[in-house]
């Protein structure tokens, strides 16, 4: 039985970074050339350098930062509540087969509804601001957490459960001490997926809701002003960067906390 670390799958880390950077550079250049050469009207697609400059400028604009903070608050609050709801529910569904079959029908009905389609309904019922933004974020980001929790529980090794059971631990204890930690890497992946969805929903809700604050609001309002394309694009770049940053941080956290998961999978067993 060998316990070497896994052979690198696909690209090594520096390789990935290099290719990612190259991709961004090419896109940047293309947009720069298109913009400067006047192939596309400047008010439709400003050159990338102007967008970047504007994005940097916005980082020092207290008004813009306030909007970002509003969006991140809705995002964090929504994700936190979603996790607090979806993980226990997933544990319940995943460990009690009767409950699982009972709720499956409801779940299968609700899941295909695109969360964005609920924005007008939520605005109608809940008004505006965090009051309506957070519930939407919670709703949309609960699904991946819920499914990954149930899936993670399916994947728990029966021998591991039997082991703790044979030492006289109750079923509930086995759930907490074996099933939950064993499924934790899957749950974390679900939370990471949910984090992206939550950001999309937070920004999207702000854009569509018409009034209030937030990064989405900033983008929507800039779009209504003549010559606001630059602000729209700079705001969008920020939304993208936030998404990337969040995903990276969570991904790194996963790798660190669940080192055992990777190491075990790559082992011979």
């Amino acid at each position, binding site marked *: 039985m060998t316990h070497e670390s896994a052979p690198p799958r696909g690209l090594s880390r520096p390789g990935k970074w290099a290719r990612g950077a190259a991709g961004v550079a090419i896109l940047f250049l293309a947009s720069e050339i298109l913009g400067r050469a006047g192939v596309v009207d400047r008010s439709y697609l400003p050159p990338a350098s102007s967008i970047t400059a504007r994005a940097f400028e916005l980082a020092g604009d207290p008004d813009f930062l306030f909007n970002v903070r509003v969006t991140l608050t809705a995002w964090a609050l929504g994700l936190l509540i979603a996790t607090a709801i979806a993980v226990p529910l997933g544990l319940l569904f995943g460990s009690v087969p009767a409950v699982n079959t009972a709720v499956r029908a409801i779940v299968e009905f609700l899941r295909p509804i695109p969360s964005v389609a609920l924005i007008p309904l939520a605005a109608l019922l809940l008004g505006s601001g965090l009051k309506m933004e957070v519930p939407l974020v919670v709703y949309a980001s609960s699904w991946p957490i819920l499914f990954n929790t149930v899936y993670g529980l399916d994947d728990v090794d029966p*021998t*591991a459960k039997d*082991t*703790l059971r044979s*030492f*006289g631990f109750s079923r509930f204890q086995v759930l907490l001490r074996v099933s939950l*930690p064993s499924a934790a890497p899957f749950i974390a992946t679900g939370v990471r997926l949910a984090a992206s969805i939550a950001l999309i929903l937070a920004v999207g809700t702000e854009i569509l809701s018409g009034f209030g604050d937030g990064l989405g609001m900033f983008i929507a309002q800039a779009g209504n002003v003549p010559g606001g394309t630059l602000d729209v694009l700079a705001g969008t770049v920020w939304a993208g960067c936030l998404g990337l940053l969040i995903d990276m941080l969570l991904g790194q956290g996963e790798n660190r906390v669940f080192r055992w998961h990777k*190491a075990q999978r790559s*082992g011979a*067993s």
Partner: protein
Amino acid sequence: MLQITGLTHSYADGHLALDGLDLTVPDGELVSIVGPSGCGKSTLLRCTAGLIRPTGGRLTLNGAPIGGVPDDLAVVFQDYSRSLFPWLTVRDNVALPLRRRGKSRAERRAAAQEALESVGLPDAGRKYPWQLSGGMQQRVSIARALAYRPSLMLMDEPFGSVDAQTREDLEDLVLQVHRNEKMTILLVTHDIDESVYVGDRVVVLNRSPARVHADLPVSLPAVRDQIGTRSDPEFVRLRAEVGRLVRGGAKVAGAAPADADRGT
């Protein structure tokens, strides 16, 4: 006393693994169980541990039927690597069951360290199971069962992955714990010499579905040692007899049949 009568189990797919197995084990006895691969030894242990509900027959421990997992039980699983928790360090793996003993954190850690030392892994406590070799993982799972100090211990091929020298050390460790703690032990093994060396009794199972084919008392002195015991004429006689029975030989009381493998 563990009493098994008419134990029958067929799995969900209809496979009959045990067919009317009878076995009585007095308290404090170490019973070696041998039998062909796939005959139902692990199934027998799982039923005894209350992990699967047999489809027929009766199991009682000290007179009470085994419904769920009996109190004071420890199992060393055949799949030792899958029975260790990869998110816990080796020491925490060994210490975890001791929560059931109402011990403090410090006591649990001390007991875990002591058990790890007894299986020859004094420095493995801070590592994770997946950082150890197969044989070392197997010893961790033995240490975990020993640290628990159960009154009934079920061991499913517990020494299969360790080298010959370590294996002898572990056999002696189990014998010593068995004597000192008066543990009842069922030990499944493929090694015929081992079954005689550690056992107060050797139970030979039939080819699948399992039933008790033969049940031989081991009349060797309780205190055994690797060199002396293995050259004892009684040991030599028993291992030949068990070997013959495992190969499907008929039960013959006393008289030596004219089998080739008895020619020692």
